[in-house]
């Protein structure tokens, strides 16, 4: 039974996606442009036996999400830049203690209070490196209302599969935009449930996760004794051990490898018109919508422009960018920040193509005609073929 088409806002779609994914706990603090996610979930969660709590700040919100996830509930929070900064402390704890959870950052202009509440993509590097210390992270970037739903579901699945915090990087445009969508029905969704280790508590002490077999974290209050810590711990016993370099190295490597060795499964990229493209647009989130319009315009002029849209931003889809670089002479990277992802693209392109960056930090969306001008310039320089 397909769902009827209805007009849904991006933030509402995130909230519905969370419910569909099995999230039963939300803790948050009001901040524009993310607040609708909290408002919708404050009504929806108690209907499905879940729990919504408004905390005293974003530090406490992220802490409560960690606590609820440790107690066995799929949990999320939603915020924007200033709150995302405050959450970094406990995002780091979730990465270290391997606590599955989802953080939705609806990006607005920054730094600090910045541009409340105009769109931005200024937090893309913060999503990767916002918390201190070596760690891995997964970040997904929706560019439509439907993706706000599907990527929230996917974020929960990745969080459970890899026992990690996952960040959904929305922005003020995508979050506040309304589109007529058919949201997926429950039977169309693949949901990764929170499992329990498939062994006795005594045997649990003898088993250890490997990169290819990540055991679920037993819940507090289950038959397993749990110790979750932000200290470096021995992966076998779970006990803190800060005096053995080999233990710290093993944990540090594992926390990276459990995600990076699965990057082919995690990185999602949409390619459009790339078969014969001479110039590629590399764009994500709301800017990808403008880029797509610019690409259609260029094709209508007979100009060979394609597009690569990363849906997973972290881990960075290096392989897809390398493949792109081998086929085009120029990659244009429009983004609502000043070169944050363009640097990353440049690193993956390794000089095989020219990288043109185009950034805006004025709180206005990059329009299709701006990207069209960049395309025109590129083909004017090289001559239309």
């Amino acid at each position, binding site marked *: 039974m397909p769902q009827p088409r209805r007009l849904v806002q991006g933030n509402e779609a995130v909230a519905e996606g969370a419910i569909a994914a099995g999230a*039963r*706990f939300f*803790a948050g603090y009001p901040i524009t442009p993310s607040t609708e996610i909290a408002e919708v979930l404050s*009504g929806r969660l*108690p*209907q499905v*036996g879940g*729990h919504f*709590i408004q*905390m*005293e*700040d974003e*530090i*406490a*919100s992220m*802490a*409560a*999400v*960690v*606590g*609820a*996830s*440790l*107690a*066995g*509930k799929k*949990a999320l929070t939603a915020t924007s830049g200033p709150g995302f900064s405050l959450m970094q*402390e*406990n995002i*780091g*704890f979730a990465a270290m203690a391997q606590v599955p959870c989802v953080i939705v950052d609806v990006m607005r202009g920054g730094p600090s209070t910045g541009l409340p509440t105009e769109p931005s993509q200024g937090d893309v590097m913060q999503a990767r490196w916002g918390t201190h210390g070596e760690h891995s992270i997964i970040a997904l970037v929706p560019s439509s209302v439907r993706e706000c739903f599907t990527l929230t579901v996917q974020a929960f699945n990745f969080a459970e599969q890899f026992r990690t915090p996952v960040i959904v990087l929305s922005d003020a445009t995508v979050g506040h935009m309304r589109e007529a969508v058919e949201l997926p029905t429950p039977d169309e969704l693949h949901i990764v449930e929170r499992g329990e280790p498939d062994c006795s508590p005594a045997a649990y002490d003898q088993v250890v996760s490997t990169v290819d077999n990540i055991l679920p974290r037993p*819940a*507090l*209050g*289950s*038959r*397993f*004794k*749990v*110790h*979750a*810590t*932000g*200290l470096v711990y021995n992966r076998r016993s779970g*006990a*803190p051990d800060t005096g053995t370099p080999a233990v710290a190295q093993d944990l540090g490597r594992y926390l990276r490898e459990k995600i990076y060795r699965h990057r082919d499964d995690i990185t999602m990229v949409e390619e459009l018109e790339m078969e014969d493209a001479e110039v590629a647009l590399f764009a994500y989130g709301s800017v990808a919508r403008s880029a797509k319009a610019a690409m259609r315009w260029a094709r209508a002029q007979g100009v060979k422009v394609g597009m690569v849209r990363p849906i997973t931003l972290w881990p960075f889809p290096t392989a897809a960018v390398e493949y792109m670089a081998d086929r085009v002479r120029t990659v244009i990277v429009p983004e609502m920040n000043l070169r944050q992802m363009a640097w990353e693209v440049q690193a993956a392109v390794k000089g095989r193509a020219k990288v043109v960056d185009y950034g805006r930090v004025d709180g206005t969306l990059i329009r299709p005609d701006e990207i069209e001008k960049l395309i025109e310039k590129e083909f004017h320089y090289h001559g239309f073929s």
Partner: protein
Amino acid sequence: MRPRPTAEIRHYLRTPKTLWCPGCSNGIVTRAIIDAVVNLGLDPDKVVVVAGIGCSGRTTAYFDFSTVHCTHGRALPVATGVKAADPSLHVVVVMGDGDCAAIGGNHLIHAARRNIDLTAVVFNNLIYGMTGGQMSPTTREGDVSTTSLFGNIEQAFDICELARAAGATYVARGIPYSYQQLVTLIAGGLVHKGFSFVEAVSTCPTYYGRQNKPAEPSEMLKLMKRSAVPAATFKEGAEFRDRFPVGVLHHAERQEYTQAYEEVQRRARE
């Protein structure tokens, strides 16, 4: 409440060793928590201890309950998430004075305001021990620390008064010297349905004692005993200067947060 034999207490410890200094009273408070749990006959699988960072936070590695050693000052909001997600759990929150009254002060007043059913036990040794003896919000005026070399000029928090004013419905203070009373006070917090706050005034001979005297662990405990006055006989005034009340300081009934939320769930489903 009768203290349980050491052999029985040991059953609830993961390791016989701690990193605490000789003469530290954290071990006594840790034992008192186990004693209270055992005396009440709580299912150990349903006891969760959440602690922050500092000497007190290390208890999580010692208790053989389910334990969370979270970030500095954030034990209360983490515990709030645990309790809200699974109200069947007995959640004990261990904090130090810096944890509870400095970096986590905002979380303390809000947990108390919500009256969520957590049992907070604060190891208040009046100093930052783990980092080597800096002043904390409970360091008394005039006390010397490595960051108040000429005497502390800031007024100390009375954390029990703070918790009570913020809405805690069970507030008690005990001392390691009076072990049996401390066990009873913690047990009272575990039984109470609402936010319970138990201050365990404790001693740090290494960093507080050496800088402020007496430095001898047993002398520190004796001084503590002389300073502690039963709550019923304690009065404000010169006679009780440098003294503090011990016992149950406040006990009230008010709707508990997770129970109130069940009503929210019921209304939402209508």
